[in-house]
Every structure is written in C-alpha cells, then in structure tokens.
C-alpha cells in the first residue's frame, strides 16, 4: 500500500504493508536510524518520535496511522546546523553513556517541554518514566531537561 508521510518536514512516499511499524519504516525504508529498537513492546522508549506534538512509541505505531500527522525524529531537531537546546543540554550535562537511549530520551523530553515548559523535577521524573536508560544516566538526563527549562525562563 502506498502511504504518504511527512517526516521532518519532507513528504515521503513509501509502498509498504500498512501494518508495519513506523519504526521499521523509518529505519529500513527511509534510512532514518536515529530512532532505536530496544524492546519492541513499547516499554523502553528508545523508539520515541513525535507525531504532531505528541511523543509516541514508533515500535507500537502502525505506519498507516503515522500518515495522520507530521512525524519528527531525532534527525529533524537540528536547525541549520544548530542543535536543538535539549540536544545541546544533553551534550553539556553528559546525559548519555552508550547513547542508545538518547534519541528516545531527547524526543520524550522535547514533547514534555512542549506541554510543560517549566516542569518541576517531579514532573520530569514522572513524565520520563517510560524511557529506560540501562546505563543509569537518569540524574544527568533530568539535569539536561532542567537546564533547558531554566534557560526558557530567562527573560
């Protein structure tokens, strides 16, 4: 089936089974491998992308459903060679070890900051709890999100 997607601001046509996961289409058909497979059951968040402004598990999203709204992946955050503030904050806070969860963490964090621009630590922890960092970089990830939130508060 021919499906038209808007991915990172570009129109993409893919001819695939509509039941295929958005994750497999992004990775295998569109060569956008920043979103990761971690568990295939929506439990780890490594595959998180934005559908509209909402963070979704791309491993649990049939590709046909993704045609409904623009898809943003980790590859779509940079603007003219400048990192998104949360990407920059992850670098500055050292909020990664192996980095495999990082794309999903950043996408979940971007979504959280869109809905809650000045989150409390508790809101960050609860909002991010669906994403797993097996290396345990959680404190640094919280610090990265807090850094962006506090920069946003500056006049």
């Amino acid at each position, binding site marked *: 089936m021919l499906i038209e997607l808007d991915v990172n601001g570009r129109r993409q046509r893919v001819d695939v*089974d509509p039941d*295929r996961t958005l994750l*497999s289409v992004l*990775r*295998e*058909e569109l*060569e*956008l*491998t*920043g*979103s*990761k*497979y*971690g*568990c*295939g*059951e929506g*439990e*780890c968040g*490594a595959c998180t992308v934005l559908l509209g402004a909402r963070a979704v598990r791309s491993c649990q999203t049939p590709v046909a459903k993704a045609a409904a709204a623009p898809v943003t*992946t*980790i*590859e779509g*955050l*940079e603007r003219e060679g400048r*990192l998104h503030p949360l*990407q*920059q904050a*992850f*670098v*500055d806070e*050292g909020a*990664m*070890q*192996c*980095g*495999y*969860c*990082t*794309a999903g963490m*950043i996408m979940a964090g971007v979504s959280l900051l869109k809905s809650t621009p000045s989150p409390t630590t508790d809101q*960050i*922890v*609860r909002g*991010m*709890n*669906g*994403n*797993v*960092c*097996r*290396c*345990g*970089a*959680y*404190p*640094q*990830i*919280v610090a990265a999100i807090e850094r962006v939130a506090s920069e946003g508060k500056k006049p």
Partner: protein
Amino acid sequence: MTTRRDFLKEVGGGLVVVLVASRVPALATLGAEPSLHAGEADDTDRISAWLHIDERGAVTVYTGKVEFGQGIRTSLTQHVAEELRAPVESIRLVMGDTELTPFDMGTFGSRSTPQMGLQLRRVGASARELLIGLAAERWKVERSRLVAENGRIVDTQTKRALGFGELTAGRRLTETITADVAPKPATAWTIAGSSLPKVGARDIVTGKHQYTSDMRLPGMLYGRVLRAPQMGATLANVDTSAASAVKSAVVVHDGTFVGVAAPSSAEAKRALEAIRPTWTPPSEPQPSSTSVHEHLKRSSSRASGRQAGGEGGGGAQPFVHGNVDAALASADHKLARTYTVAYIAHVPLEPRAALAQWTRGAEGDRLTVWTGTQRPFAVRDELVRALGLVPERVRVIVPDTGSGYGGKHTGEVAVEAARLARGAGKPVKLVWSREEEFRWAYFRPAGVIDVGAAVSEDGAITAWTFDNYNSGPAAIRPSYAIANQRVAFHPSDSPLRQGSYRGLAATANNFAREMHVDELARLVSMDPLAFRVKNIEDARLRAVLEAAAEKFGWGKKPERGNGVGIACGFEKGGYIAACAEVAADRASGAVKIVRVVAAFDCGAVVNPAGLRSQISGGIVQGIGGALFEAVDFENGVVRNARLAQYRVPRFLDVPEIAVILINRKDQPSMGAGETPIIAIAPAVGAAIYDATGIRVRSLPMARNGLGASTT
C-alpha cells in the same frame, strides 16, 4: 591478526610510533576473569598500541579496546593529548578492528584505564620526544629549549614553531618503543584530569552515530534465527517449504542452524513464522528458579572436582589463614548466615547485533563482520572455528556499541549473521529481539554464600569463613584485617548459561560480606561505621568510608522512620563506600531508596565528569539487582523474557545521589566501570533492616515487597 608489518604497509607518510606489547608489571595481577578467559593468561602481556601522525598533523591512534558507553574513547584521547600536547580535536581513535588495531584480549575487568591508558601515555610521550628531536635537528638547536604545544613544536627562545605534520613532511619515520618510557605524573596533567565532554556526543544527540544495528550495506538482507522452545531441546526435523514460499526470503539450513534472510525485517519475521520445526526436549527435567539455590549447593561437589583450577584464581582451593576452628571455638560471639543471589540479565539496550559480508577475492572468500562485542579478537576466533576459515580472512569491526556490562563477550550473533550471509549470498544484518536477549544470552550467575564469623566483645572480627557456591571468586576475600580466615569458591552445575557481568561476583560476595558485617556490629552493639573502621587496616578504604559517612551525615537520626545503612568494598584497584537512606514500610513491604552518598577512590582521576557518571550509573544499575531484578525460569524456559516482565531501574527508582571523588594523584589510575556497583546492595540492605528490623539475605531484596524474600 594485524602485524606490525601489515600496519606499517597500510599507513601513509608521517610519524609512526609503535609500542611493542609488553608486560605491565604492577597490574599483571589484576583480578582475572573467571571461566570465560581460562587459558588466556599469557595474553595479559600483549597490550600493544600504535599511533600515526600524518603530514597534516592528524593523529590516529590504534587500540583494540572498544567503546560501550564507559567513556574509554574519551579518556584514552585525553591521555594521548596530554602527553603529545596535540589538540583533542586532532586525535582520532581507531578501536576494536581486528585488521587495523593491535591484538587485545578484550574490554572487560576494568583494565582499559590502568593498562591501555598507561600504554597510550607512553606512546604519546615517545611521539612528542621524537618530534622535539626532529625540530632540534632541523633548527640545529638544543632539545632543551623546545617544547610541544597545541600540535606544534615551539622554540621557547625564538618563538618559531612548526606543526607536527610539517616536521615529518615528505618522510616516513617509524619508531618502535618499549614500555619503559616514563609518562608525566598526574600532578602535571592539564588535559587528562579534566572533564572533557564525551567524544562523539554530537553524533549521538543527532542520531547520526551508526551502531551495528543501524548499519546498512547495498543489497543487505535482514536475518532471523529459529530458536528452540526450551534450553537443551534439539531439532528433530524441520519443514521450511512454507518459509521458502515467502516472497524474496531465503531460508538457510546448515546442520542444526536454521534461519531466514529477507529484504525487510517484517518479511524475515513472516518467513521465520512459516517454518515448521519439530523439537526433541531434553531427557531430564531442569531446575527452576524456585529450587536453584538448593541445586547449586547440591551440585557443587561434583562440579568442583571437574572444574578445579579452571576458574582464574578462585578455583576450588580455599584460601586459609590462621586457625579458624580454634578461633571459632574460643569466640565471644559467633554468627553464621546464608545469603543468596538470583540470576540477572544484562539487558543492554542495544541487543546483540551483527552485520556480515562475504567478499570473493583472488585468494578466496573473506568475511567481514561488524558487531558489538567486548572481545573482537575472540569473536574473530569464534568465526574462524565455527565457519572453518583462516584468521587472515576474517575481520571483526566493533562500532561504538549500545552497552554491554559484561554481557557481550561472545560472538553467537556474529556467527549466525555470517551463516545467513553465506547462505543468502548477500550481506545480512541480524539484530536479536529483546526476547532473544532474555532467553539466549548468558546471565550473571546465581549463587549461595555461607558466611560464618566470630567477634570479640570489643568488636574485633577474630574468625571468618566464607563459602561461595557458583556465583564466582571475584572480591571473595575480605578487606578486613582478620587473623583467622577460610575462604572458598565452589563451582556448581549452572542450569542457565552464565558469564561475565559488571563487577562479576564482587557484587554477590560484597553483599554477603557487608550484610554479615552489619549484623556483627549490632551483635556487639557497635555503630556499623565504627565497627568497620576498627577492623579495617587499609587507609584508602577507611578514607572512602569516612568521606561518605561525613557527607551523608552518618549518626544523625533519619526522618519519618526511614532507615540508614552503610557499606564499603575494594575490587580491581578501586575503593567504594556508600551510605543509603530508605523509606521502607514493614506492613506493605514497599521500599523506596531516598538518597545515596557514595565515595570512590580509583587513583588519579582522568575525567571527573565521566567518572561521576560511571559511579552514579553503577549505583543505579546496582539498585536493580539489589531490589527487583531476577530471571524466572522453569524447565529450561525463561518466564519473564520481556521488558514488561523483567523490571529494570527507571527514573522513579532513582534516589538523590551524591558522589564524592577522592582524587589520589599519587596513585595509578584504575578502572571505574565495575567497582562502584558493589556497595549499593548491602548499604540498602542495612538500611532496610534499620527501618524495619527485617533482615533480607537474598538478592533481589524487595521484588514483591519485603515479606516474600525474608529469612
């Protein structure tokens, strides 16, 4: 294997410094890996590295170590930059490539920092001195007035300068050095010792970094492998006709190996599901997780006879000192307890993955495999053996990988991908599913530990017996000064495939030891900190304990009925102490770790931010094994083979963590990937007791609340 001659043929002009593999004497006794590395002891001598500076001043360092998130690419870069005085940006590390890098036994055992770090400092220092020599020759001046600075050699008198690349232009200079070059002392470091951000971080936050599982080659297919329904089952026969009918899928049937490859992972999955196998179950029933501890203890006498001497140092030979029986007989107080630990899974977020490509050359077939393994040279040898090849025609390349924690020592996924690629006649990428990771990888061993001790009325430990069944000999001997000791490791028949894990058995042994010490302290009505300080002779261990206790506010009563606990440990050259505060509810059994203070001393600190991250990461990972991680299995089937069923630490599980670094610039830098994990479980266990009066002697301690696992 890459030889020095091959390497020299490959690189272009410029300066080449080769460090010939040589012993690192002070470190040769570092804890050897049990079981997985038996018979490789001689290879500890072979820690080579080489460095090339091209005519434009670009520095390329070749090392067999691999980057798995522990930050070694960054800290090794700092070591080279420090000695060579080259900008960090000009240095690139080629890591874990059996064709380009020198042989390396593997990245495990916290050896990269003490061994490879030291070697690269020597290589960098030698290169710097050679460059100064070249400049002195060219300018016809004394060496002593020249310095290396920011990628250039500068004449301190005239201020003229030449870039490293310019100094070698037009020539190829090769220098072979041995390990007796003295690198700078840590007190003189300016680049090492600083918090350089992770090398490659930008490619990670933009999604550009290509892990093995992200790679793609032209014409590449996606693989899947047929798995048995239970461990020990064998394939009786298989009907692959329906799978072969799936459009564009290739079925590969090679002895007992059956797999498929297809242009998309979805088609590969469909083809796999169309295979109709018939399995023969194993003839005897296998122990389950509920009976495993009895099984391990019962089977140990058989196993120890068979495996004696093959366990890398622990073995079946007990360590005996003084007269334990006499000391126990005349003791003021005695205490004997049994501790147990469950099998746990590594759960690396990037599952095992390999991309295999066969190419036909004049001299025959060649195999290249990209795979995330901690032991690229060992995996190459596995491929050679499994596929009947010669080492010269097999290349293993390790892209920076999505973690391992000791779980990626083996090459099963590489062998499977290579079989599929050979059968399909095209490159094949194979990524294990999460479920395959849970079912078919190996686990951290379960174990039973019997501890006995005697303590005098004034709080001196006078006797110590310690028997570990199956979980391993790492850090098995106490760091306390005890005159009479008998300590032994007893191998058992493990019903599950088991192997290395971050910290090895040091976590289990330190849990049993430190929980026991906490109980001994209370037996003589002493504060657990004071009791430890009284029985510790090592000043560095005492220092981490006291630092953690001070920052934690040890001795102050915690709020709201919370409990506090303290524990310490020494392993692989690192000293760790942790204090924990927990909120534990006796009635409901719920446990929440509120805060943790940890102090760590691993000698001179190479990268403080990276080190803090390793310590807090080890604590977080340790919380999983301490409180809730366990593999459930029954008759050869893992029952909780999904992430929804196997709980790993998440944001909500993380306490407030404060880390104290004790930077001993007068001491060699040791590894930090493992030891910080070993103190958290007993600190939490002691805190649970302090809060509730319940002694939990089994890991995990609070999987279904406290009640289920108490003794």
